[in-house]
């Protein structure tokens, strides 16, 4: 903190990735490039071209996190089969800042709105803009792809992100990639898109 004095009581800010970044106790497992890997409790599988690192920390019971160079430089998250009535992430501040919940009747555009609202709350920022919401496929199912950018207080870097989401059998499937706008997002997004194309979803 700083020598700043606040007008009202402050709830200690969660920095970018604060909720998602694993504590020092997280362990890693290599995902081998070229091999099919199960993700998100075997509800999904994916065949990446290169090696990734998977964290033992989970962003929610339905998700898992991968990175190439560390979460502050690139973060790829997979969420599979989130049931209706559940939030995307673990709901850490249920009382003060509850997260919005997925509902199975949502439209594809609603998924982008759910994602935006969730991340604004988690990151405590209003500088979060979703752009280019477009139709796509996820494992052959109708899906939505959207790009976004955001910045958080106390950090001078803008971050770019892209996500693909779909509702399959009433459950939410989501893959999201985020990285600093300088260099890292552009360097990796093509690989990530190719990786998303290999996703298969178990019935």
């Amino acid at each position, binding site marked *: *903190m*700083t*020598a700043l004095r606040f007008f009202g009581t402050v709830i*200690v800010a969660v920095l970018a990735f604060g909720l998602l970044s694993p504590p*020092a106790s*997280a*362990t*890693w*497992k*290599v995902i081998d490039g070229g091999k099919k890997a199960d993700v998100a409790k075997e509800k999904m599988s994916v065949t990446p071209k290169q*090696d*990734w*690192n998977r964290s033992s920390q989970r962003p929610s019971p339905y998700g898992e996190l991968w*990175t*190439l*160079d*560390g979460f*502050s*430089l690139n973060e790829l998250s997979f969420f599979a089969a989130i049931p209706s009535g559940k939030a995307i992430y673990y709901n850490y501040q249920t009382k003060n800042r509850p997260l919005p919940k997925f509902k199975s009747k949502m439209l594809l555009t609603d998924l982008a709105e759910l994602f935006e609202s969730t991340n604004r709350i988690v990151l405590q920022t209003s500088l979060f803009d979703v752009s280019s919401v477009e139709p796509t496929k996820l494992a052959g199912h109708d899906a939505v792809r959207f790009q976004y950018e955001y910045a958080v207080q*106390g*950090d*001078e*870097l803008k971050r770019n992100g892209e996500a693909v989401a779909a509702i399959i059998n009433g459950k939410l499937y989501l893959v999201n990639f985020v990285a*600093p706008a*300088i*260099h*890292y997002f552009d*360097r990796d997004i093509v690989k990530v898109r190719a990786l998303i194309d290999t996703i298969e979803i178990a019935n």
Partner: protein
Amino acid sequence: MRKLLFIAALFSVVSPAQAQFDLFGGDNSPLYSSKATATKDGFTFPSTASETKIVIIRPDIFVGEQSTGGIDRLNANWTKTAREYLAAETSKLLISQGFVVKNLQDLEDGGDSLLVEYRALFKLVSNAAIRNDLFPAKGLPTKKGKFNWSLGKGASKLGDLGDGGDYGLFLFSRDSYGLPGRKALEIIGLAKGLEAKPTPHMGYAGLVDLKTGDLVWLNVNVRLGGDVRKPDGAATRIEKLLAKFPKRSGAAK
């Protein structure tokens, strides 16, 4: 006690730079007394025949005093003079090795956001490198032993800011000197078998190739010598921080 200090710290001054050292964990971390260096595989400077220009990015410096209760207060005079001494000693050392040096001191108000952004990116990249490569105990398995980190080609814009620099040198140092009460506490505490966390004297330096944006060399030392408040101390500090700085080609490795 720790918890109380933590609550107290919410209202006190803690350097934003301190966050940089979160990666060393608490005082129980085995990293606490570590130092490490890495150079990108096969990296050498271009031959001595051509001019090689290093842009020294305004060093990120904190020099403070630590109270008995462990609260650091930045000392404005020490910090300002240390920044000057360290930049001057860095220039001196690099010039003595045959480099051309440009100090990119201060881009004040209205100055380019570019420098601010790249400094922030350097912080992320160097911390990731430190965590995963230099002290890889809990690092990413795919990055262990491979020193390949980059800020991207856009870093060449930093070279333009420095009138055509070939490399950018980033320096970070953090020092705190215990006030008499702090020292007394350390001594008494030791007599009781309690070890107070030593006052910090730590820093790192990183060299970026401004054509590719690649981090070509990084040195971290969390127990640095040299009193940065004095010119000869600053010289000692820079010698340690730039120890194992890559040699120019032709010179012995």
